[in-house]
């Protein structure tokens, strides 16, 4: 798959079909991949595909000028389509190099299972439904569903539907919705006041680095409401109240654009369970309006469309 990707990417640049290639290259730490954004055909030799290509590369599309060949997993492809729906990018300017994705390995889960930090592990390898972690020369085996990101367990589109070049064979979806939704289900059992207090505590450690927003392909506003000063919607001060409002509004603003790619939660340096917000909003949108973002490039965006009869039970 990697060889084919390198050839195709190189060809795209050589034949001047794209100006840029966005993909992954090996990261500087163990078990990491890092985005590679290049116009140099020689760089394509470094392109890789492995279970650690975690970033949603669609995030870079709105900040780049020119035609782009982009490596896309299922979730990335949904974000790309969502951007097309919103007229942020033009389909013709993107060459989608589709990667059938069997799920990405969540190093936080691995660390918990192995009882060691990621840099203390010798090896992580996947073989079908098993993941083998080698620590101090000893092998430990785990079921794949224990080790994948929550959002991968809920993946509805492992292989992009919309693509120009398909790399490898499409895999079947491997949804483990129950596991994936555990955190949300548990929260819902709590009383409203307890839930609010839960979020209050979680957001009291937010440092307002805006990594969640900046890593989110759906957050493409040139100017975010948090940066408005007249009026000052929220204070640019990491107080839990303002932090929480920021995140509530962010989720509402990306409703119908969020594809549950899980990046917000992955990038958070202070471990706020942001996917438990994003996924719930994803569910609300689906439940109320049968809308799933990034599935159909011809569909109108959620907020640009309506039905005569919907959600009426919420209105007096």
């Amino acid at each position, binding site marked *: 798959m990697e060889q084919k990707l390198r050839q195709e990417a190189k060809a795209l640049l050589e034949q001047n079909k794209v100006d840029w290639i966005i993909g992954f290259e090996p990261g500087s730490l163990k078990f990491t991949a890092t985005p590679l954004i290049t116009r140099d055909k020689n760089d394509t030799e470094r392109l890789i595909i492995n279970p650690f290509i975690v970033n949603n590369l669609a995030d870079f599309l709105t900040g780049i000028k020119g035609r782009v060949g982009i490596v896309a997993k299922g979730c990335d492809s949904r974000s790309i389509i969502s951007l097309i729906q919103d007229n942020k990018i033009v389909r013709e300017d993107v060459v989608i190099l589709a990667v059938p994705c069997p799920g990405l390995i969540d190093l936080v889960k691995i660390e918990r299972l192995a009882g060691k930090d990621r840099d203390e592990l010798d090896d992580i390898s996947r073989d079908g439904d098993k993941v083998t972690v080698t620590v101090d020369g000893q092998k430990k085996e785990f079921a794949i569903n224990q080790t994948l990101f929550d959002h991968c367990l809920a993946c509805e589109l492992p292989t992009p539907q919309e693509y120009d070049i398909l790399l490898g064979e499409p895999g079947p979806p491997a949804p483990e919705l129950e596991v994936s939704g555990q955190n949300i289900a548990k929260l819902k059992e709590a009383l409203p*006041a307890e839930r609010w207090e839960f979020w209050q505590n979680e957001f009291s450690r937010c440092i307002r680095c805006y990594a969640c927003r900046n890593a989110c392909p759906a957050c493409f506003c040139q100017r975010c409401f948090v940066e408005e000063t007249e009026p000052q919607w929220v204070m640019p001060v990491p107080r839990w109240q303002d932090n929480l409002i920021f995140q509530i509004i962010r989720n509402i603003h990306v409703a119908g654009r969020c594809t549950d790619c899980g990046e917000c939660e992955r990038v958070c340096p202070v471990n706020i369970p942001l996917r438990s917000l994003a996924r719930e909003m994803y569910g609300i949108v689906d439940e109320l309006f049968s809308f799933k973002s990034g599935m159909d490039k011809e569909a109108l965006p959620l907020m640009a469309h309506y039905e005569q009869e919907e959600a009426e039970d919420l209105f007096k």
Partner: protein
Amino acid sequence: MAQQSEWEPKLLGFLCRWCSYAGADLAGTSRKKYPANIRAIKVPCSSRVDSLLIIKALRLGFDGVLVSGCHPGDCHYLTGNYRARRRIAITKKFLEYLGVEPERLQASWVSASEGGKFAEVVTEVTKGLKEVGPNQLFSERKLDGTKTKAGS
């Protein structure tokens, strides 16, 4: 909630100028009784009400927010209230999930001729707010020891 008997909820209404605001006027001129708890802001259309306005109202200490617009199909701008409906629906559901009592965000369709309905809606919403009590969502409460005195 010991002082509930004296406490009166503060309700902020975002009322569409074409219908609900006129409906509120009519309720007044035709002497329909409704609680004085509502403070009304005239908006050009219910779709003007971004979720930011709703959250900001709660942040500023209003106990509840009422968004009211024209009945579906009757929007002065043809489709504004349909769009408002989607936005308010997700906001309402999402806030509920976060732990905000559903009573705090209410929405209704009230036409210019429905002075009676406006009075009913405000009465009902105010009653609901009295049941859930004062809005303390954003007030400084005990937090687990993450930010202690010596820590800051």
